């Protein structure tokens, strides 16, 4: 029955929709027929014709109204009305281009910012990692926990061997290490970003090769025939996408490798830049035998199905404790840290992204509040129109629908504009390739983002359209026409509430922006410990087979004297590691005044660099005490070391460190017979920010002459050449390259970057978030100002008559201005107070992003309040000025 009732009317409805004219005529005829009959009857009862007619129409409650109700009863109205509303809405917007433009731009900015943020978050955080079983991939590292301090370490080769034997949670468990390789035997040598990986690392990722196969276990073993896998990019760019690449031989670091496969571009492990993979098994012989050596290995595991991350974590905890009991000297305080690969990828940016998302949501909210405000103001002037339409028979739902249609139209256009804007912004973001955002190159506007934008536009239309529409349409029912003016001004008392909301939202954003600006400024002014300006660095890798230990020392010695002779070079040096590049060599270090017992080591870790004598001058690291190295500090002279100020203070407080001794290398293999290699401290230098700008330096730093490298550097290290110049440092690169080629053309020069670039790299993420937050804050402030201005000037125009009377009664212009500004100030003050508390409450969320400034920094709050004050003065002053200029006579003529 119910179904029938639904189905039966359909033909009639369709008929009505497509034959509107006929249906309308039919309706008119029917009602006219009725009226005529009624009149006849009334006349027959003895009424006059006029009276009879009036009675008949009255009984009908008005003909037009009856018609409207009949139309509604026919139920085709909805679709028809929608089209009509759309038409009407578009006409209204065309007639108010100022309002429409302002609304569309405001919405476009709000929706655009949200769309862009959502695309970033969708790609970086929501989309699963591009592996077949992303949820089961975990990374493992080791942590040394001493005296409440935690130091993250790479994985010890010996520990890893035990993990593999004991752990049951993993389907695959493998290790990897970044290993850049030089491709030769083609027209020009190329330094490739490469990785040595266990076969199981590739199995764990589960990515199928484009061509060929991945490594088999036999290839991942010492003494196996060298095999390599290529990236799609390398295969296309250097091998012209040769289909027969598999089984061809390529030369990497002077050794022949057989290509076994090509990975598709979706292979992004260990990094999206990796171009070549070689089996780690080939290098097993070079892996350290001592358990406390953590040679930069990372570990990737694929959990067995149905094993949770927590289960695996507790198993690894047990294994780590067992190893600790077995080898207390090295492992008593070493724990395993197991994190999902997703967590590992995302944890660095999550906080920033969420804070920014919060900020853009605030911007959108302010935009909505503002629009609601504007719509309401405009609606109040339209009360007359609404009252008229309602008297002509439009129902409230009909009026609501029409107003909502107008806001939907605005939201749709604003959404389209926002989408365009987001597209441009994302393109710029992706083009700038910020290294701090993982998977940034994959960010794009896809179907999910489109869906998000549509939803957002709908939500926005409701948010800023529904409330004003309800307000406006509820007015008219109890309004007689002459009451319109007073009723409208009565309603406008609600609107200051919107200003309060706007101001407090804007305040939160502005405070965040101010704190981020202070953070950025603090970061930019961090005492680096070196001076980055006019310094160029480049890395050099000597082919191992040609260079034994004395030979590489003399190579660099020769190179340095050649570089010194170049014009405009002020200082030059080499070092095994440079600041802010990432990575470094770490060890325990024993000063001469503590017992030499490695099992009870309580001291700080030490970051080591092997450097030439000129390195300190080239990098601009100030010498505080003693001397730096000279050419006399050679392999045959007594071992020496330069330490940083923190080491000096930690080891020998209030004593002269020069002439004291430290040890960090041991010729003996046992605790009973450590045979330490003592080095004499010859100098103290300024502490350098080696890893990043923000962490408190708990470690100490040590520099040794490269002619006396630490024992673990006996195998040839990659050295960085550091050159300080009087001219822009990029200009010397080519001549330095020429000098290297003159010494040995087979030596690749790579990673050519200025120190300023490294500093900028570290500042990139804070710079990005500060920039975005500041622009969002400014946007919010502007929107809020427009809001204040709108409310006040509307109020002034509504009260022209009142102001005129006040003037006529003797109020001075200053008094009028004060009067209007006081009215404007009230919601602003309330909003600011709420804003301060809201900021204080929400600052807990961004505390993690702050540096060098407290989340309750008084100066930031005060300056935001000051800015707010100035903007408010302007936004309230302009309408007040206009009010003061109102002439009493004009005011009386008003309306």
């Amino acid at each position, binding site marked *: 029955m119910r179904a029938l009732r639904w189905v*039966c009317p359909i033909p009639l409805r369709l008929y009505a929709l497509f034959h509107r004219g006929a249906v309308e005529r039919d*309706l008119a005829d029917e009602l006219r027929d*009725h009226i005529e009959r009624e009149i006849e009857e009334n006349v027959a009862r003895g009424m006059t014709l006029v009276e009879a007619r009036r009675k008949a129409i009255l*009984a009908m*409650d*008005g003909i037009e109204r009856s018609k409207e109700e009949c139309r509604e*009863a026919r139920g085709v109205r909805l679709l028809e009305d929608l089209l009509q509303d759309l038409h009407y809405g578009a006409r209204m917007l065309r007639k108010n281009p100022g309002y429409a433009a302002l609304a569309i731009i405001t919405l476009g900015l709000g929706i655009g910012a949200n769309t862009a943020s959502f695309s970033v978050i969708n790609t970086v955080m929501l989309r699963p990692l591009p592996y077949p079983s992303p949820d089961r991939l975990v990374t493992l590292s080791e942590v040394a926990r001493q005296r409440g301090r935690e130091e993250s370490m790479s994985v010890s080769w010996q520990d890893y061997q035990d993990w593999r034997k004991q752990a049951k949670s993993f389907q695959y468990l493998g290790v990897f290490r970044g290993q850049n390789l030089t491709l030769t035997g083609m027209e020009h040598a190329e330094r490739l970003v490469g990785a040595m990986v266990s076969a199981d690392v590739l199995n764990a990722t589960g990515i199928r090769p484009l061509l060929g196969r991945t490594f088999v276990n036999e290839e991942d073993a010492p003494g196996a025939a060298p095999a390599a896998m290529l990236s799609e990019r390398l295969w296309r760019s250097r091998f012209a996408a040769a289909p027969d690449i598999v089984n061809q031989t390529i030369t990497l670091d002077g050794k022949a490798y057989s290509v076994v496969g090509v990975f598709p571009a979706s292979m992004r492990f260990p990094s999206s830049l990796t171009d070549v993979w070689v089996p780690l098994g080939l290098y097993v012989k070079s892996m350290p035998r001592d358990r406390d050596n953590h040679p930069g290995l990372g570990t990737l595991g694929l959990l067995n199905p149905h094993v949770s991350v927590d289960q695996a974590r507790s198993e690894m905890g047990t294994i780590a404790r067992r190893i600790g009991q077995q080898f207390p000297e090295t492992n008593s305080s070493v724990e395993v840290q197991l994190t999902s690969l997703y967590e590992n990828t995302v944890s660095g940016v999550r906080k920033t992204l969420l804070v920014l998302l919060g900020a853009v949501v605030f911007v959108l909210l302010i935009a909505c509040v503002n629009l609601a405000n504007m719509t309401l103001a405009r609606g109040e002037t339209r009360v007359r129109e609404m009252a008229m339409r309602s008297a002509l028979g439009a*129902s409230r739902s009909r009026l609501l629908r029409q107003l909502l249609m107008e806001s939907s139209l605005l939201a749709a256009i604003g959404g389209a504009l926002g989408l365009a804007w987001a597209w441009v912004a994302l393109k710029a973001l992706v083009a700038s390739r910020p290294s701090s955002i993982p998977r940034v190159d994959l960010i794009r506007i896809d179907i999910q983002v489109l869906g998000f934008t549509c939803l957002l536009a709908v939500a926005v239309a409701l948010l800023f359209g529904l409330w004003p529409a309800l307000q406006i349409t509820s007015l008219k029912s109890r309004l007689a026409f002459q009451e319109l003016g007073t009723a409208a001004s009565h309603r406008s008392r609600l609107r200051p509430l919107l200003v309060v909301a706007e101001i407090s939202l804007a305040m939160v954003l502005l405070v965040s922006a101010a704190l981020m600006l202070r953070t950025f400024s603090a970061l930019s002014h961090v005492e680096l410990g070196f001076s980055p300006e006019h310094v160029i660095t480049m890395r050099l890798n000597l082919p191992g087979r040609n260079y034994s230990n004395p030979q590489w020392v003399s190579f660099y010695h020769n190179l340095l004297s050649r570089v010194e002779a170049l014009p405009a070079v002020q200082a030059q040096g080499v070092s095994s590691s440079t600041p802010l590049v990432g990575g470094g060599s770490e060890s325990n270090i024993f000063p001469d005044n503590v017992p030499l017992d490695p099992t009870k080591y309580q001291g700080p870790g030490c970051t080591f660099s092997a450097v030439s004598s000129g390195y300190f001058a080239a990098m601009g690291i100030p010498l505080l005490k003693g001397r730096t190295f000279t050419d006399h500090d050679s392999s045959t002279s007594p071992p020496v070391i330069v330490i940083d100020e923190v080491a000096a203070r930690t080891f020998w407080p209030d004593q002269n460190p020069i002439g004291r001794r430290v040890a960090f290398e041991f010729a003996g293999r046992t605790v009973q017979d450590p045979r330490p290699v003592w080095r004499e401290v010859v100098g103290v230098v300024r502490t350098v920010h080696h890893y990043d700008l923000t962490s408190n330096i708990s470690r100490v730093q040590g520099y040794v002459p490269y002619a006396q490298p630490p024992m673990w550097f006996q195998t040839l290290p990659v050295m960085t050449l550091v050159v300080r110049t009087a001219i822009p440092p990029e200009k010397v690169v080519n001549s330095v390259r020429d000098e290297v080629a003159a010494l040995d053309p087979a030596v690749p020069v790579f990673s050519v970057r200025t120190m300023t670039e490294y500093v900028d790299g570290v500042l990139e993420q804070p710079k990005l978030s500060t920039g975005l937050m500041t622009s969002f804050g400014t946007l919010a402030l502007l929107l809020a100002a427009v809001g204040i201005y709108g409310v006040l000037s509307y109020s002034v125009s509504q009260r022209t008559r009142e102001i005129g009377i006040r003037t006529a009664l003797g109020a001075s212009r200053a008094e009028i201005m004060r009067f209007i500004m006081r009215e404007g100030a009230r919601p602003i003050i309330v909003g600011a107070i709420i804003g301060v508390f809201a900021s204080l409450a929400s600052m807990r969320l961004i505390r993690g992003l702050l540096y060098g400034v407290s989340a309750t920094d008084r100066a930031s709050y005060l300056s935001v309040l000051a800015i707010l004050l100035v903007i408010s003065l302007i936004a309230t002053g302009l309408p007040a000025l206009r009010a003061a200029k109102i002439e009493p006579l004009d005011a009386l003529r008003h309306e």
Partner: protein
Amino acid sequence: MSKPTDLVQGTLDLLILKVVALRPLNGWAIGKRLRQTSDDTLQVSDGSLYPALHKLEQQGVLRAEWKTTDTGRRAKFYSLTRLGRRHLEKETGNWDRISTAISRVLRLKEV
């Protein structure tokens, strides 16, 4: 826009169906018949009669066609469809049950 309805919601529909069930009538006659048969107790305003007629036509319980009356005038006549007849039977049954029940309750006396 409240309609002055003196009738219980939905009852107007039932009355219309019943009046039309006897023979096809035009809108004016339906209103008149309703007033007459109820001795002017049921005041159906013409303003709510026509929307109700159009709604019932939409629902498929009434059929409308233009006919010429005995006096030679054209008018729109409403008649019951098969669906309408079934609907009327069912609703009449409902009405009887409810009104009997209500009457019983109202005739309750203290014991």
